């Protein structure tokens, strides 16, 4: 009962049970629907406890074996293709499981307050339970196709959640956009899986595939192609350039959904996928530098767009895209440096990011709750007196996101920069990694600037409240503020508690068998003993503080008055660098022309198809009189049929 596999399975299935219960409540439509959040909160809470138990058990396992794989249960098999239901618990998946369930618990609790009185309250929690379940399945799956199943499950749930207010056209459109854009990446993902299946001795099991491929190295270019295809899936799901456009639009969903999607789940799936597949990526430096560059471009681009947004949630959304870019930059260094260090840096940033980004979104949700649904920063300000708890927790999150020293975000961002710095001193692509390091520093500056711009515009200056809030704008109830406080503690302290002094996190991940495998496959030098790099930390801190002070100078009044000099820059940022317009001109317009042509062609084909489809009918009308209801005729037909069969045989043999 207490082995990690069973515990993980129980933790994974609890949200499913919650989903069933919530669905029942949603269908019953009674007063009971008010309690639809109870199953999810309980399930996530229990799952989080179990996740932490699993974590300790994996940590306590003897040093040789940090991986637990369940007995495979065949899901389906056809020919060479055999797909089994199998889960794996190793340090990477254990960390993710504990983190996802823990964060989800608090978000669920927050949502029970935030969504209070909404239409479809039970539906919301049913889908959210399914979302958590899919995410847990995605984390634990030890089979590529099983992983895809859960991966798509996450996609469907996010579609349902982003489109929660489906009566609002913009929400429906955003949901569709999120689903379709991520599908674009999924095409590559599935192609990559089948390429790997073919190369990897017809295995779809992750562990078996890695064992096979590291033992019998395949064609280098083929493997690179497979890695890049897998990365396509990650680009879609984790909203990287050029497919990041769906994520800001996904803010149309209820705020807890934004927190869930952008902090704990979904977008981290791509990072997690690459971390799991580290043994493959470690073998292809070309794929790795691509990953790093995509991450770098995304990081700086999203940070730039985030500078001037008016919508508080959109600022946070772009910051998420940007931070995910950091994670991919770190992942992309694996191979040039020890993949163990690269993955640890990415996972550590993912881990701390989950805390402070969930916190920031939930705080923004709390603001939105008080402001009657208004989220435009131009319409409110000076809320620090009105919302004291939200103010303080938001400040914690902002400081962490801006990577101010000693906050969680500082340590993880430092580790990411450090991995880039190591890679710049390596052998291959040193120049590229050095440019990426500079990109990371510039992004750090911009991050600090836009984070504190948002903070100051919201909480400082004269108090302004939009009329939608009415006269009763007030601090949120306890079930919303308690999650804020818990997450705030995490955003402040979780980083310092587990990494910089005791290296618990990196030691724990270090034991992951896939990472050791990746290290063995990468031919990277043994990493030097970990030392705190004062120079790099100093430069990083200077960049953050510069951004922070610039924001303080410009927004000390809590209002936006731009000097004429920076106005064009801000206009470019506000208009998202015209990326949507460029996409529109480059893809959507030609797409429209193409669609028109296709429609014309389709009409032609349709006519042909109609003609063809008329054939069976004509044939039928022609044959139908045979079925005339006379039994003697039927008997005659049977006898004639027999005669024809016999003469056929006679004819064929005689020939």
């Amino acid at each position: 009962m207490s082995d990690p596999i069973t515990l993980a399975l129980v933790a994974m299935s609890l949200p499913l049970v919650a989903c069933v219960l919530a669905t029942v409540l949603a269908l019953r439509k009674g007063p009971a629907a008010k309690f639809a959040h109870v199953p999810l909160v309980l399930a996530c809470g229990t799952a989080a406890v179990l996740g932490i138990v699993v974590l300790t058990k994996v940590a306590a396992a003897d040093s040789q074996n940090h991986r637990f794989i369940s007995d495979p249960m065949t899901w389906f098999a056809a020919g060479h293709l055999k797909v089994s239901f199998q889960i794996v618990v190793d340090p990477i998946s254990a960390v993710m499981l504990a983190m996802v369930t823990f964060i989800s618990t608090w978000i669920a609790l927050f949502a029970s307050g935030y969504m209070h009185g909404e239409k479809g309250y039970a539906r919301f929690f049913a889908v959210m339970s399914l979302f958590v379940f899919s995410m847990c399945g995605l984390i634990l799956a030890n089979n590529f196709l099983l992983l895809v199943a859960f991966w798509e499950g996450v996609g469907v749930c996010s579609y349902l959640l982003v489109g929660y207010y489906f009566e609002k056209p913009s929400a429906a459109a955003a949901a569709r956009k999120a689903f379709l854009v991520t599908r674009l990446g999924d095409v590559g993902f599935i192609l990559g899986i089948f390429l790997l299946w073919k190369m990897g001795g017809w295995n779809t099991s992750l562990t078996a595939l890695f064992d096979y491929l590291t033992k019998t190295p395949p064609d280098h270019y083929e493997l690179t192609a497979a890695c890049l295809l897998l990365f396509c899936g990650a680009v879609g799901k984790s909203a990287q350039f050029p497919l990041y456009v769906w994520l800001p639009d996904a803010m149309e969903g209820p705020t807890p959904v934004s927190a869930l999607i952008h902090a704990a789940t979904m977008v981290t799936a791509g990072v997690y996928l690459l971390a799991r597949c580290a043994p493959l990526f470690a073998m292809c430096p070309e794929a790795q530098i691509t990953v790093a560059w995509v991450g770098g471009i995304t990081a700086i681009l999203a940070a730039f767009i985030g500078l001037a947004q008016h919508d508080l949630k959109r600022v946070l959304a772009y910051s998420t895209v940007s931070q995910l870019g950091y994670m991919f930059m770190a992942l992309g260094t694996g191979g040039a440096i020890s993949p163990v260090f690269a993955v640890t840096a990415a996972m550590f940033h993912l881990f701390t990011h989950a805390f402070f980004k969930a916190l920031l979104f939930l705080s923004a949700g709390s603001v939105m709750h008080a402001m009657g649904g208004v989220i435009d920063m131009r319409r409110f300000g000076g809320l620090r007196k009105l919302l004291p708890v939200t103010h303080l927790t938001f400040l914690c999150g902002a400081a962490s996101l801006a990577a101010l020293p000693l906050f969680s975000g500082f340590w993880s961002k430092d580790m990411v920069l450090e991995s880039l710095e190591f890679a710049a001193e390596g052998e291959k692509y040193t120049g590229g990694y050095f440019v990426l390091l500079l990109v990371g520093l510039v992004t750090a500056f911009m991050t600090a600037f836009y984070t504190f711009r948002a903070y100051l515009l919201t909480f400082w200056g004269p108090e302004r409240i939009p009329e939608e809030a009415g006269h009763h704008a007030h601090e949120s109830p306890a079930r919303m503020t308690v999650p804020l406080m818990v997450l705030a503690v995490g955003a402040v302290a979780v980083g310092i508690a587990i990494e910089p002094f005791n290296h618990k996190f990196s030691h724990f991940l270090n034991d992951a068998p896939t990472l050791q495998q990746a290290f063995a496959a990468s031919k990277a030098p043994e990493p030097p003993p970990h030392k705190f790099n004062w120079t790099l930390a100093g430069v990083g801190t200077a960049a953050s503080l510069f951004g922070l002070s610039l924001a303080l100078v410009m927004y000390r009044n809590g209002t936006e008055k731009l000097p004429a000099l920076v106005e064009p820059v801000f206009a470019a940022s506000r208009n998202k660098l015209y990326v949507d317009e460029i996409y529109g001109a480059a893809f959507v317009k030609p797409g429209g022309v193409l669609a028109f042509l296709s429609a014309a062609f389709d009409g032609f084909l349709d006519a042909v198809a109609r003609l063809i489809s008329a054939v069976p009918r004509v044939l039928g009308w022609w044959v139908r009189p045979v079925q005339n209801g006379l039994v003697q005729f039927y008997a005659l037909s049977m006898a004639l049929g027999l005669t024809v069969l016999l003469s056929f045989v006679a004819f064929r043999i005689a020939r």
Partner: protein
Amino acid sequence: MNPLSDPQLQHTFTGVFRLVAPEIALVGTACVVFLFGSAFNRRWIWFTVSLLGVIAAMVLAGTVRTPMPEVLTAAPIVPDAAANFLRWVALISAAVLLFLTWPEATRGHAAEYYGSLLVAVAGVSLTGRANDLVSLFLALELISIPTYILLYLPSRSRPSQEAAAKYFLLSVLSSAVLLFGFSYLYGLTGSTNLSVITDALTKANAEALSPMALVGIVLVVAGIGFKITAVPFHFYAPDVYEGGPAGVVAMLAVLPKVAGFAALARLLGLVGADARHLPFDTATQLPLLLWILAILTMTVGNVLALLQDNVRRMLAYSGVAHGGYMLMGVVVACSLPEAAGTVIKLEGAPKVIGPTVGGIDALLVYLVAYALMTFGAFAVILYLSTPAREVGAIDDLAGLGKTHPISAGAMTVFLLSLIGLPLTAGFAGKLLLFIGTFTAPADTAAMRNLYRLLAVVAAVNSAVGAYYYLRVVGVMYLRTALTPIVGSRAVPTLMASVALAGATVFFGIYPQPLLTAARRAAPVPELPVPAVADAK
């Protein structure tokens, strides 16, 4: 020595009873039901007794050990894996049918109804294990004769009587043709035992083609063609399905087809025999004949189903089409002697990867899927029919999505499964059949690329089929009824349809147990490593 005093032979004969214990239980229960039925004709009594009989048969089937007979060439019954698979199909069908037909087995003839049902099921089970022309014919008649009674029993209306008469006459005709074919086989080999016949014909065929054997087997195929509704032996189906009572039609649509395919596979030597030595392989032209029959059957069935406005007639023609799909499995199985297999070299010794689907295993899976969805569709029709208003025309189902959401949902599942959409049992079955046909050894003298062509024709047919099934779904959900259906409120029937829908979805999502069972019943033949094993 007198062969009759051979102890092994004696043992083979006396051991027969052991091998058919569940069937004896079924027929015994039926006798009790018939005998006392005239005294107390209460539905619930005989329902319970019959159900107990089926359960007893299941217990016997699960517990009685059935060793293979020592002298296979004398054994009238063989308890091989395929036989056991079919027995379980028959027994589970019996249990389903008992629930399903609840509203039809009304007071006055409940006993006869249930009794006939049990006998027919025993016949199906026996067909699966018959190893002798005599026991095979007996088993097939054991299905036909109760069916005549069942068709006549429940309603005394004119269309129903007409249906019963038609079925009777044509069935007798087909039995005669079948017997005629059997007499050829007996005359050629001097034995009624199937093992002897198969061996003798295989040996004879290795030297020269035997035209008389072919004539015999063509007659047999024609006789069985009636049971599996192969064109042109299908004419009875639409008329009988339309006029007959829905519960009986459900039985009639499934049980004879299961038995027919079982008999066909046995007679062609496709079950249990060595796949590389068949009495009728592709060199004999018989597979080509079956190929033509398959294409003709699925195409005529689908084309005519397109034109129907009556649900039952539509289902009848769709049943014809599905018979054609299932014939694909038989065609593929006949092709296996030609299978060469590809040699792949993983780590270690070279391995031969033969065809992934053996044909008969796909057929068995499809039979189960077909049984699920056909029983289900007729269960819904039966549930919605009342004596005052029978469900006939497709338009009768209008607005069902609103008035009877459960029935409409179940019906949708069955129709989607009949189309063969993923996540339904019909998809799993169709996929296997298609894979089998597509990977069948292609380049033989007689068949050339015809297998691929068959797969393509079948795919086109499935696409055509989607049209008329989806039309019903559309009527159920998008239209509103002028006079809504009341429904019979027969809870057992509803239970049966829901359970069948559940099973359809379950085997669609997780077909592995079914595949494993079918594979065990009809293993894909192992191929030897060819002498010239190419290294790359």
